[in-house]
């Protein structure tokens, strides 16, 4: 049997008509009458699909087109062209029926009513999504317990801390137990304990209800903890779509060397040592730690030899390259292959 896809996207494109302002007062007057318009594609003919029950990390730098894609998938924005099928529906065309089947959490925007108690918001949302009492009790009691928000229910949202609010937001998005959950920066600004709790919870929901989760985040540790698969976006194009592991295998080859010297040399001088070799140096000025990113493992000992020859080493470490660095490297190069 063919597995049902939760999300199917083909040649999806979204263009924005932007205008550039001319500079200065004179330019502003001219703008009053004619403007320089230009069409900017925020999402550039992308295609992908997500299976029911998958947890996918959707990553990219600011302005790469992440939010635009999410907004098209949730029916907020109409695509310029291309085909979207989410939960078997076209999000924008059948918006009201469609949103019944998804849950959305925007990390920087509240779903809850600011002035009233959390449970009042829940009650209203329960009616909005037409959830029966029996369903609500069975499902939400569990959610409330797992997220540990029982004591927060009678407080108005404006009195909650960010971490408390985020947990309530998550619960609010799950009131109708949607098979598909969109999370846009859900852990932004949260402390480690809350982050861990939210991750645990998402895993559990995914296992229990086979909920599909699409997650955008700046915090790669979220993705490492949750997602088997990542889709990486750059300037509106998908530059990588696949398992997080194979990304690591392919790009994680290489090491990071950290040196501390007895007498601190200039960064240029150190860089000169490995001139002609694919080695990238960085300097942490506060701690005077010199790090070298080396892609080719065979170059590790040569680099060490050269450095040891030139300077007296006080301390040295050899590290695996972190996911964050892998991704930074990919963005610097602009493509995966």
């Amino acid at each position: 049997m063919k597995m049902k896809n939760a999300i199917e996207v083909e040649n999806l494109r979204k263009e924005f008509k932007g205008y550039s302002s001319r500079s200065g007062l004179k330019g502003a007057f001219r703008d009053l009458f004619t403007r320089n318009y230009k069409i900017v594609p925020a999402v550039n003919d992308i295609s992908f699909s997500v299976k029911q029950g998958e947890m996918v990390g959707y990553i990219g730098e600011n302005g790469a087109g992440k939010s635009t894609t999410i907004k098209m998938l949730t029916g907020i924005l109409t695509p310029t062209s291309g085909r979207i099928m989410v939960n078997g529906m076209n999000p924008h065309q059948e918006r009201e029926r469609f949103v019944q089947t998804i849950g959305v959490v925007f990390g920087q925007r509240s779903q809850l009513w600011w002035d009233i108690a959390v449970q009042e918001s829940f009650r209203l949302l329960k009616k909005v999504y037409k959830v029966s009492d029996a369903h609500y009790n069975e499902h939400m009691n569990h959610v409330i317990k797992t997220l540990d928000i029982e004591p927060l229910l009678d407080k108005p949202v404006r009195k909650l801390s960010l971490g408390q609010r985020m947990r309530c937001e998550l619960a609010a998005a799950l009131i109708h137990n949607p098979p598909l959950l969109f999370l846009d920066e859900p852990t932004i600004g949260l402390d480690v304990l809350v982050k861990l709790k939210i991750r645990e919870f998402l895993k559990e929901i995914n296992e229990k209800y086979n909920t599909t989760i699409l997650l955008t985040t700046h915090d790669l540790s979220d993705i490492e903890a949750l997602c088997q698969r990542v889709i990486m976006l750059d300037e509106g194009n998908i530059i990588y779509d696949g398992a997080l592991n194979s990304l690591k295998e392919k790009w994680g080859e290489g090491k990071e060397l950290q040196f501390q010297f007895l007498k601190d040399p200039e960064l240029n001088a150190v860089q000169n040592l490995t001139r002609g070799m694919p080695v990238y140096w960085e300097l942490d000025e506060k701690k005077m730690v010199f790090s070298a990113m080396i892609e080719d493992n065979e170059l590790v000992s040569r680099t060490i030899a050269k450095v040891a020859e030139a300077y007296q080493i006080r301390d040295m470490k050899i590290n695996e390259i972190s996911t964050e660095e892998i991704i930074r490297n990919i963005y610097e190069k602009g493509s995966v292959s």
Partner: protein
Amino acid sequence: MDKYIEMIRIRFLMMLAYRTNYYTGILIYAINIGAYYFLWAAIYGHKTQIEGLSVVQMTTYVAIAWMARAFYFNNIDREMAVEIMEGKVAVELIRPYSYLMMKTMQGLGEGIFRLFFFSVPGMLIVSFIFPVKFTWNPAVWGLFAVSIVLSFLINTQLNLLTGITTFFLFNNSGLIRAKRVVIDLFSGLLLPISFFPGWAQGIMKYLPFQGISYIPSMIFSNGFTRQAAFHAILEQAIWVIILVLPIQVLWSLAKKQLVIQGG
């Protein structure tokens, strides 16, 4: 001083950026003036004069009152309320300038923008459609110029005062709205103060509102003698000075409040 002039410039640019607003604004002001013109024409009926103003003077009065309003009017009270409620004002206070002065300059930037791109072309359009009578006497223009600058100051001071009250009231949007309504009526925008019954005029003499609209409009429509005009401008100036006091008092109280509550 440079930073304040820069602020005027920035505001000017911001106003230019919202151009849809600009086009519709002129249209709406023109409709507004037009509707009041017809209302007044109907009120005059066959009378040639009411309270010493002819129909043409009245039309001129209405037109100039609205066009002057474009210059002195601003929303800084509402902006201050938002900045205070969202806690942004604490950031403003650690910057190396006077917050109130900065707000005034923002208002001035807006005002100058509207004066040149709104009032002047708007007045031209209006003068083609309605029987408005301009004077070409430079002395009248000079007095008018001084007078609307003072209008701007009085109106801005009142806005600052209402804005500052946000520190003490939880939500002052009602107060801001009430203030606007009162100013529209008692400043002489809707109808000249001289149309009110005598006892009401007596009370209004002791309020700053007529310095906002009535005085400059009367000067422009030649409704005042030269003597009366000088006297009126002097009154405006006195109000500008008097209003400094409550602003300073409330502002220093507000800053104390801010320190205690942490914004």
